[in-house]
């Protein structure tokens, strides 16, 4: 039973990590690429870390919760770095895809 839960969590995590990188590779301009890693990769790594926490909690004596710390850290830092990268990209005027909707004036 435990093995099944772990296997499913790991597979979900790996899937989302892959989706994030596919987004990074395939989408056509920087601002769109930003979406893949900030959301999908973060959730993917989060799922893998939680699987690791469950695994070590059951394998060794006592609970192993420090993986939660890395998950928390990633969930806090990923949006911050995305925000800064987007700001930098706007600052140096990175090209956008032509169909990008512009701001209403």
């Amino acid at each position, binding site marked *: 039973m435990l*093995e099944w839960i772990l296997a499913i969590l790991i*597979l979900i995590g790996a899937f989302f990590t892959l989706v*994030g990188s596919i987004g990074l590779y395939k989408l056509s301009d920087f601002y769109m690429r930003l979406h893949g890693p900030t959301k999908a990769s973060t959730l993917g790594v989060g799922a*893998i870390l939680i699987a690791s926490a469950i695994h070590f909690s059951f394998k060794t004596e006592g609970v192993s919760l420090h*993986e939660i710390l890395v998950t928390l850290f990633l969930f806090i*830092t990923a949006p911050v770095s995305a925000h800064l*990268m987007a700001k930098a990209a706007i*600052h140096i005027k990175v090209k956008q895809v032509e169909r990008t909707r512009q701001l209403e004036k």
Partner: protein
Amino acid sequence: MLNLALSISFVMVGLAILLSFIRLIIGPNTPDRILALDTLYINSIALLILLGINLQSALYFEAALLIALMGFMGTLALSKYLLRGDIME
């Protein structure tokens, strides 16, 4: 069961690292490369944790924590560099 899932996941995360590496090489401009580096370190954390589960060792966690801290700092420093032209104020 777990071993099979682990093997599949290794392949998937490895592919993810390859894709972000391609993006790192083809660019086309600096923010893209920063983003690719950011994704690369997040993916490498995933790979390390999977390796830790596979080898039944909790040691790899420390490395993952360090990569997370240093990677975030690196992304911040590079973005700040683009924004201001220098890193430290």
